[in-house]
């Protein structure tokens, strides 16, 4: 059990401000749990726990992307709170992912609220544009970004610093089956993420590649996933070089067919 000091709380709020801007703009991907947790761990003076929660949370959130305009549970709050809980309450990192989730959902809903609320700035933006007031337009962009960033700082400070006593009490009063349940959920949650990825990517024609990657890791002992990525790259290149004619179906539907029949 570790206390979060006021200084640490303020520093977490400070980095949350930066992560918040980065997530809002999707610029440097500092907002991904693997970075957020590592930095949080470093601030708490426990880099190791940050790395471990970072790896685990990153995987749990791998499929939870804002692609297609759907706002996922917030990766920044998930990263910070998972690490803070694992460090301060001394629970297993997998259990901490489960305990961090409510904070992540809270921030998701705040961002969704802003998406709607910021529509109210549009009449003002339109007026600036019709007056050729570019400085005003720039100020509006900055204003909305700052509102979001300050919210991140505030929410993180409140959750990580002010609420830590309540959090620790909660963890202490938890029966074993419940904390084990959280750990089980932490292990299964990536399935939802992978399901989300597959929803977008998986078509019947790609099932062989999914099975190949799956079987490879089931039966070959590997330290990290790089070999699977190389195998995937090999498949991708094979298909790319062997189905060239398909790439321009509109332009050259006639020619390749003729070549094919002549070749046979």
């Amino acid at each position, binding site marked *: 059990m570790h206390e979060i000091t006021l200084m640490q709380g303020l520093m977490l709020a400070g980095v949350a401000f930066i992560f918040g801007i980065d997530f809002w*703009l*999707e*610029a*440097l*991907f500092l907002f991904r749990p*693997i970075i957020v947790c590592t930095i949080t761990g470093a601030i708490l003076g426990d880099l190791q726990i940050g*790395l*471990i929660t*970072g*790896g685990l949370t*990153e*995987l749990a959130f*791998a499929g*939870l*992307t804002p*692609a297609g305009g759907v706002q996922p*549970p917030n990766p920044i709050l998930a990263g910070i709170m998972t690490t803070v809980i694992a460090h301060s309450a001394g629970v297993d990192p997998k259990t901490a992912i*489960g305990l961090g989730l409510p904070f992540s*959902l809270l921030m*998701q809903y705040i961002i969704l609220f802003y998406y*709607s*609320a910021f*529509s109210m700035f*549009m009449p003002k*933006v*339109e007026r600036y*544009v*019709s007056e*050729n007031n570019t400085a005003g*337009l*720039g100020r509006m*962009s900055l204003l*909305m*970004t700052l509102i979001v960033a300050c919210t991140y700082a505030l929410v993180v400070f409140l959750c990580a610093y002010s609420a830590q006593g309540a959090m620790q009490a909660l963890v202490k009063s938890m029966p074993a*089956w*419940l904390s084990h*349940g959280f750990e*089980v959920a932490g*292990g*299964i*949650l990536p*399935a*939802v993420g992978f*399901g*989300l*990825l*597959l929803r977008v*990517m998986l078509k019947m024609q790609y099932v062989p590649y999914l099975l*190949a*990657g*799956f079987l490879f*890791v089931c039966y070959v002992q590997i330290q990290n*996933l790089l070999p699977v*990525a190389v195998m995937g790259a090999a*498949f*991708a290149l094979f298909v*790319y070089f062997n*189905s*060239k004619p398909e*790439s321009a179906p509109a332009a050259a539907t006639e020619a390749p067919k003729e070549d094919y029949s002549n070749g046979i």
Partner: protein
Amino acid sequence: MASEHTTTPEAEITKGDITKLAFRSSMLQAGFNYERMQSVGFTTAMQPLLKKIYRDDPEGLKAANKDSLEFINTHPNLVGFLMGLLISLEQKKEDRALIKGLKVALFGPIAGIGDAIFWFTLLPIIAGVCASFAIQGNVLGPLIFFLVYLAVFFMRVGWTHMGYSLGVKAIDKIKDGSTMIAKSATILGVTVIGGLIASYVHINVIASFAIDATHSVGLQKDFFDKVFPNLLPMGYVMLMFYLLKKKQVHPVMLILITFVLSIALSWLGIL
């Protein structure tokens, strides 16, 4: 029609201007809202160049800004390409309908390509590899992750220059290569996801059946691991896939269901 546009000479746009545009393209989502999505940031990012192009033509600037403030939702990493392209057209004082039409025609496909490459291929691979380092307590995990995405960020400069120099030819370019690139990227991504499922979804059944006083059959060790390791993780992922795709269940609902199920099965002593 074109004659009235040619009163002022074409503004000179330098390489430095385009590079600056690339960095400014990072403001794309600055004013994100549900009404026009990325339009505020999109317009803000292009201001310096539009002002340069329409320096003696306030009405022209107004018209250009009004068009760029229309609804847009595309990919932050690739939007520089679209901005560069549109700036080259604005510079030539092309017809407004063409500029508007190109923007509307391109932002969707660019978003699709960007999502396929950056979210659904690059992220699972980089996250999977880096997380496997991080879980072992190796600081290389986050470090590699950071460096890869830093490189991806600086590629924005390249996309923006590409868009600007391609000019109107861009549409053909995109149509030419995109299907094959997207298909190959998908194959790579799907293979890695297969591996991710096997290594990172953990379902371990602890329930066992007592045969007699001394012997019992552990469901996991004696049944699932012998039939097929990781059968349950793959099955659960497929169930999620089915619910998401065919039943349109909301992801947050599935997360909650997974939680409740995990805790319930833990309480029953099955998992």
